[in-house]
């Protein structure tokens, strides 16, 4: 429904967007025993690392090929080879995943070719899988990088296998949290199906205490699981950004696919459960029937606080669609929608327009809105505008527990409704006794005859504190005297 407009500005102010290689690295965080590497100069990696650490409050494995100005011009073969060998020696990951950056793309490094050469020259790397994805910084954004990375994983590692009727592949979008993934896994398993989650950040970034120190990712989709995805009976993708990988799976292994545009909201989850029920031949478990009815109740309770509010929201396309649609279903008006990159998801958004822009655009359009919804970088705008801010997506660096926030399934939808409604409640204006003072004329009129004075005394006396400025335009001593 929404019309997509691109910002005409030359200068992005307070960027909403993050880079492709960061999105791709994020996807690789969901593979087990993996070391993601950015092929570029070291600052890119350092910035990405800091952001991931601040969001998840976890140690993050991320490496760089440490290009400098000379190697950038000559080409990065030596650095790639050195990086692969060094990483292999230090951390012995099962997978090394390389994302290009703006620098190496501008130069035009042929990384695919480099990898072929490294394979020949360094036989010790034979047991290590190497995945490469092209992610120039100056094209697309975080979500695009994630999308291409998942596709690259599929294309590099999945082979067709005989179908297993009880196995499904779940492709979560980058907007899902570890808790979201756990929730979906639980739902799928409740039907007696076995999900392979690709990639699975719920194993690696869910904040647990491992028994030893490891240089690579800890937990996530294992190599065996990725390979086994060729046997799934169905691919379930969450968000438009998973379509590319789902199509790749279909092409490679012939797996039928179903891409859900979101799983936040009532109707979409109904659809999912029905599909799972059909696939497994099992009825929808009682647990979810109950949750559904709880969600209905939550929607009823919540709509008082969301009905009619005007919202300014800025997020990556799939997250924008998920949260925006729910808000719309709860009666809010999507007054201003900002996103980062083009996506088929925008067409489904119940808003007039989506602007591919930045947080300055959000701030300017939000003056008459009741709620801001975006990542932590929106805090400055929210402070300046004195508006409540709902933090969603990545990065959320000024809150803890981000890995455990749930927004999908009936339960997750319910959680989100509660957070929104509570935020609105918290920011509701409280009225005070002095909020509706009489005009001086009215007071004067009311105090001119002695018969009326008694009434006014009663009104003034009803203000329990007496210190409230709003009810003191007349002289209390006079009134007190008058009432005697």
């Amino acid at each position, binding site marked *: 429904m929404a019309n997509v407009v691109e910002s005409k500005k030359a*200068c992005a102010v307070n960027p909403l967007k993050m880079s492709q290689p960061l999105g791709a690295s994020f996807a690789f965080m969901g593979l087990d025993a993996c070391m993601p590497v950015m092929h570029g100069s070291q600052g890119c990696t350092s910035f990405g690392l800091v952001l991931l650490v601040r969001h998840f409050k976890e140690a993050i494995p991320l490496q760089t090929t440490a290009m400098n100005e000379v190697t950038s011009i000559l080409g990065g073969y030596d650095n790639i080879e050195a990086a692969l060998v060094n990483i292999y020696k230090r951390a012995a990951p099962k997978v090394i995943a390389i994302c290009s950056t703006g620098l190496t793309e501008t130069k035009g490094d042929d990384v695919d070719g480099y990898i072929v050469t490294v394979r020949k020259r360094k036989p010790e790397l034979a047991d290590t899988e190497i995945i490469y994805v092209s992610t120039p910084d100056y094209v697309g954004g975080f979500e695009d990088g994630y999308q291409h990375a998942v596709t690259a994983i599929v294309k590099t590692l999945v082979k067709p296998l005989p179908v297993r009727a009880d196995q499904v592949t779940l492709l979560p979008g980058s907007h899902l949290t570890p808790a979201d993934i756990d929730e979906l896994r639980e739902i799928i398993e409740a039907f007696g199906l076995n999900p392979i989650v690709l990639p699975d950040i719920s194993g690696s970034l869910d904040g647990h205490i491992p028994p030893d120190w490891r240089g690579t990712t800890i937990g996530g989709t294992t190599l065996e699981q990725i390979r086994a995805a060729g046997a799934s009976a169905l691919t379930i993708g969450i968000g438009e950004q998973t379509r590319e990988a789902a199509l790749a799976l279909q092409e490679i292994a012939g797996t039928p696919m179903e891409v859900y545009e979101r799983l936040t909201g009532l109707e979409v989850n109904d659809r999912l459960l029905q599909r799972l029920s059909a696939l497994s031949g099992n009825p929808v478990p009682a647990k979810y029937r109950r949750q559904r009815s709880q969600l209905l109740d939550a929607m009823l309770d919540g709509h008082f606080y969301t009905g009619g509010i005007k919202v300014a929201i800025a997020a990556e396309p799939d997250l924008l669609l998920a949260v925006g649609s729910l808000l719309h279903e709860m009666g809010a008006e999507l007054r201003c929608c900002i996103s980062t990159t083009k996506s088929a998801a925008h067409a489904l958004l119940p808003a007039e327009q989506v602007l591919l822009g930045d947080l300055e655009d959000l701030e300017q359009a939000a003056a008459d809105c009741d709620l801001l919804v975006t990542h932590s970088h929106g805090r400055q705008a929210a402070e300046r505008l004195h508006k409540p801010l709902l933090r969603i997506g990545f990065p959320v660096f000024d809150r803890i527990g981000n890995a455990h926030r749930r927004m999908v399934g009936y339960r997750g939808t319910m959680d989100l409704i509660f957070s929104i409604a509570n935020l609105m409640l918290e920011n509701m204006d409280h009225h005070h006794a002095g909020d509706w003072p009489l005009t001086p004329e009215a007071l004067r009129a009311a105090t001119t005859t002695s018969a009326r004075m008694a009434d006014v005394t009663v009104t003034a006396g009803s203000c329990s504190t007496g210190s409230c400025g709003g009810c003191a335009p007349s002289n209390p001593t006079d009134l007190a005297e008058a009432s005697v």
Partner: protein
Amino acid sequence: MSVSLKAKIAEVFEEPGCDKNQGKSEKERKKGCTKQLNPGAAAGGCAFDGAKIALQPIADVAHLVHGPIACEGNSWDNRHSASSHSQIYRSGFTTDINELDVIYGGEKRLFKSIREILEKYDPPAIFVYQTCVTALVGDDIEAVCQRASEKFGKPVIPVNAPGFAGPKNLGNKLGAEALLDYVIGTVEPEFTTPYDINIIGEYNLVGELWQVKPLLDALGIRVLSCISGDGRYNEVASAHRAKVNMMVCSKSMINIATKMEQRWGIPYFEGSFYGIGDMSDTLRQIAKLLVQQGAPDDLLERTERLIEVEEARAWKRIAHYKQRLAGKRVLLITGGVKSWSVVAALQEGGMEIVGTSIKKSTKEDKEKIKEIMGDDAHMIDDMTPREMYAMLRDARADIMLSGGRSQFVALKARMPWLDINQERYYPYGGYEGMVELVKQIDRALFNPVWQQVRIAAPWGDDGETLGAVQPAAKPLDFLATAAARSLGLEPEEVPV
């Protein structure tokens, strides 16, 4: 890389004020101090990052990053340099170039961006940062900035430090060069006093400058400009009228101090605000140099009196913790706050330093550490996370003080950790700050949570994770030790 940037880098490496350089032969010096990074084993920021760190605390300026979204989109709004006035430095401005800009060059977009910022925000100046991609395609930011300055009548300052030029530290210096070339000396202060100083290389992280400034105020010393914490463009531009420059211990911007001495004859000294003794020495040095430069000499006496009062008060407040902290072992992993500046305060609090990192320390620093800690000072050159983890896990240290990156090493070993680098929340400057540091250590160490997290699960599968490659070396030993400590026993005392 442009010829001018190459020349700049060479010049920065020639730095006479750097004592590492003084120890080198002519030939070695030419090579510069940036060693080649190790691909696949490197960490840390790029030169652009360094330049931005150095200059962004100039708070009333718009900082515009010329490059693809990676450089600014992934990094803005991530540091705690506090400002008492403008907030515009906290906004992220970037040209966010696209494919067409890569092919045809991004200079037009840059020029337009400058105009947009001036029209919308009207800052006293704009700093334009070069990055890898725009440098590689050959965008001439110097030329664009010059044209924009002429056209709009506002200073537009090019900061030529693309990420691939080298590491963060080099970027600090290149950022400083931009100030020397385009900013310092371009504005005259409204008035001057015999007590005017500049502070260089101080970033006012979490407001640390404000822990120190009251001391200077009390003595009548005026901070003409701080470069760059809580900075204002016009103050920095008039910094050349100060009587004395203080270079804050980290040598990130030493080139400003040495060049200002050459150009305007302003003497400088290096001091530190971290550590009680260091703080006092710093005050003394400032007073001494100011008097040498013509300030009335009662300043010396007033300074001594202030030091006496402040030191006594600080030691008294630290001593308060002595009993609780006696014998606690501290592992100090830092390059930021000088590794030895805080050691005295920790020792005064009764703590033992089991190791201090010297990765970024100079020869002098190392001697100083020996002086304070004795010959058996445990200096750590480069410790891998795994070694740190093992050291904490085996309880050879009770707490680790480090930067945020290694925090999880301690936390996963279920050991207390305190941030003493740039992302810290608590200010550790001056006398106030050292007391705060000891207080924070105390708070971290005695948090009852440590006992809680070390309790083993009754069913014995504590710590098991999904698909860990290697099991713990001796998980059971570790748990027994942890459990013993949580009961207040030594491991040997545990009845089996």
